[in-house]
């Protein structure tokens, strides 16, 4: 409990840039949670004869290739994009961080074996790996979440391990060991609070990666399947609308850019 409090205290003392990043993330989560309640139409409901309709008062963001309301579908797709990316980020970061920090305290052989495994995973192109797994396991949301979680775990592992190794050499850790503190105390109370800032920005970065990979998969038709929608699949199904400059294809693209570039910029402020 007190470990949690220390971590939260660490987060509260973050640079303004990092706080901004958290705020932005919170805004996206709010949209994912509440967005569909605001949607005027059901996502699958065909509301208009006109397809690829432009912006209008009736349908703010126009209609898609079947004449469905783009605004409503967009609100639903944000939910799935954010949800799946978040879950897979949580999986990759939790596993990666725990393993990365734990290997600083275990025997060198554990690290050698685990480290090479992680290197192996890291060397496989992520899109190719995801295509392979989904082709084998079938397209479902749990499969997507797990696959993406595994893909981004080695990065989280490496980052946290490098950070923890540096901090484990700090003199205050030595002082704590000289006092006779046990490993879990040293890890949770001495090391972890001092890596919270970089870890949080790493989580953000991995979230952005996950959004992009998910959108890629959906664009290729292997991600989220109808009737569910995410940003990538919205772009794919309306790609014909490009010829007409339809909002149905432009708006999801812009939202995707806002989501990734926005978080990236917010994290960029943290580095200075």
């Amino acid at each position, binding site marked *: 409990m007190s470990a949690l409090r*220390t971590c939260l205290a660490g987060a509260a003392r973050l640079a303004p840039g990092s706080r901004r990043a958290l705020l932005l993330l919170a805004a996206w989560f709010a949209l994912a949670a509440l967005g569909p309640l605001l949607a005027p139409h059901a996502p699958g409901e065909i509301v208009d004869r006109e397809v690829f309709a432009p912006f209008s008062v009736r349908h703010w963001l126009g209609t898609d290739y079947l004449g469905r309301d783009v605004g409503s579908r967009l609100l639903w797709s944000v939910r799935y994009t954010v949800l799946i990316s978040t879950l897979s980020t949580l999986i990759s970061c939790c596993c990666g961080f725990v393993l990365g920090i734990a290997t600083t305290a275990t025997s060198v052989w554990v690290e050698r074996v685990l480290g090479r495994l992680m290197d192996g995973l890291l060397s496989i192109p992520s899109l190719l790996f995801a295509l392979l797994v989904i082709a084998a396991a079938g397209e479902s949301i749990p499969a997507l979440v797990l696959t993406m979680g595994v893909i981004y775990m080695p990065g989280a592992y490496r980052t946290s391990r490098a950070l923890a190794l540096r901090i484990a050499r700090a003199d205050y850790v030595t002082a*704590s060991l*000289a*006092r*006779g503190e046990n490993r879990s105390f040293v890890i949770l109370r001495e090391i972890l*609070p*001092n890596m919270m800032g970089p870890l949080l920005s790493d989580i953000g970065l991995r979230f952005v990666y996950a959004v992009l990979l998910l959108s890629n998969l959906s664009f290729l038709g292997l991600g989220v399947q109808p009737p569910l929608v995410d940003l990538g699949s919205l772009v794919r199904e309306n790609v014909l609308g490009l010829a007409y400059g339809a909002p149905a294809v432009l708006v999801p693209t812009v939202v995707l850019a806002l989501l990734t570039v926005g978080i990236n910029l917010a994290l960029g402020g943290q580095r200075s």
Partner: protein
Amino acid sequence: MTALISVRGLHVAGRRRDGSEVGIVRDVSLEVQRGEMLALIGESGSGKTTIALSLMGYVRPGCRISGGEIEVAGYRVDQMTPDPLRNFRGKTISYVAQNAGSAFNPALTLHRQVIEPALSHWVLPRRDAERRAVDLFRAMALPHPETIGARYPHQLSGGQLQRLMAAMALITEPEVVVFDEPTTALDVTTQIEVLEAFRAVLAERGITGVYVTHDLAVVAQVADRAVVLRNGAVCESGPTSEVLERPHAPYARELVEASRLPVRAMAAAGPVPEPVLTLSDMVVGYGSVDARGLPARRILDGINLSVPRGRILGIIGESGCGKSTLVRTIAGLQASAAGTIRFRGEDLAGAVARRTPDQRRRLQIVAQNADLVLNPAWTVGAILMRVLRFFHGLRGAEARAEALRLLDLVRLPQSVFERRPPELSGGQKQRVNFARALAARPDLVLCDEITAALDPVVAAAILELLADLQATLGLSCIFITHDLHALRAVCDRVAVLLGGHVVEQCDAASLMDGVHHPYSRLLVSSVPEMRPGWLDEVTRQRQVATDAPPPPVAAGGCPFVSRCAMRIEDICDHVPPPVVPGAGGARIACHHPLADLPPLLQADGAA
């Protein structure tokens, strides 16, 4: 005659993160005549380096010269544009930085770097520049002046690099040289060589200089005039002897007093108390292991030491002599290859993990860098309360009260309790570090260079605190240092460490006179004294010693043989010196009979 350097009403402002400006240097005026050396004295943050750099028309990023005039050798430096400034720097004024080790490019030979200013300013053709460099190397008393330039920085010692850096500064024959703490990072025995080399060259060439330092004894040797700075403003200025002997400003007086620490009173006579810690035949090293399990490269080699209960044992030596390894070994953080540690009558395990909690509690370390040993994520209160809970099971209000009492003990205000280490000053952090060690209620405290990173006034206060606490709590301490003044101010007994060997043990009070190991003599006589002319005396005394080339140090011989003026050929270099008991319980490891060792002259400035 007009002044060569004249600064009038200089203001330098720095920009805070929120955009507001803060004065780093405020209304500083000073003058230096041709051929004079001016010392800028002050603690860290007093603006001394900022002023020295501004003479070269340079301010650190985020700062600007916000007012005043700087005139150097007829140039209005504060009004110069980048182009002429580039020509001015290195040619008219040059700079010797504090840490020559990091100022040289490790990938280039020294020669190329030393003559570079002469080439880039078109002062001399390459051939002449090379000749002048060799002349300077010779004048700086560097070994092998003809060939030393072909080496790379990592092949030379810190003292040699510092002299090479001075040679680089002088290669263009500038009118003004700025020295920025050039000897602060060096050992006393090296410092004296560097100072001597500097002074000889400067006097011969009539260089005008500005010497930035916080060491008053160095000021006494090199400077004609001195300016004492505090918080960016001039606090006192005048001829060196005037400033050092009759300081007027209260701060200047404090500074002078801090460098004249009172010598610790001898512990009450009578039998020496039983030892609380005893090291026997301690060997620590690395490399391949021989048949007896001893490593080939030894950091500590056969250390025998004991700390009597309630006394402070000082351990002194140059960098690399094994001081810190000794501390780490006693603390159980460094494995030893041989030898035993006995603590309060029990054998102490080599690794801290195998010691009992009670043993760990009774033996505490206060490390050199309080910045590094206090976890920045914790409040001071949490740091202290953790130790109280860990060792004594105190919780809640009880622990809080005890932590506040500890803060009081180390003379910190209670407001520190809620703050985190990065918000504290260096001296405050060192006090917290102390309080943490005391929280365990230890029997023995290992103090590893606790004042090395602090300014003299702050360091003096910490030493006073240590002496007080030791007296009131009856602690036993090991006090590791390279500073002889600090050693004499707090220690009862002294062990002199050289190359992993204890070459001498004696009472701290008798360190300055009587018969000593030749290395102890060298160490004691190398500590600068705060009177002008001291450097001349010492160099005159030593002139005799530096004739024959030193023999290589062979395994098993005396560690001092390569530098010893009175070594016995064919004995000292391979036969381990016997430990001879001397007057007052001293133990000296030397082949000479004690009667043959010349006694140290009682230095008058030392008392």
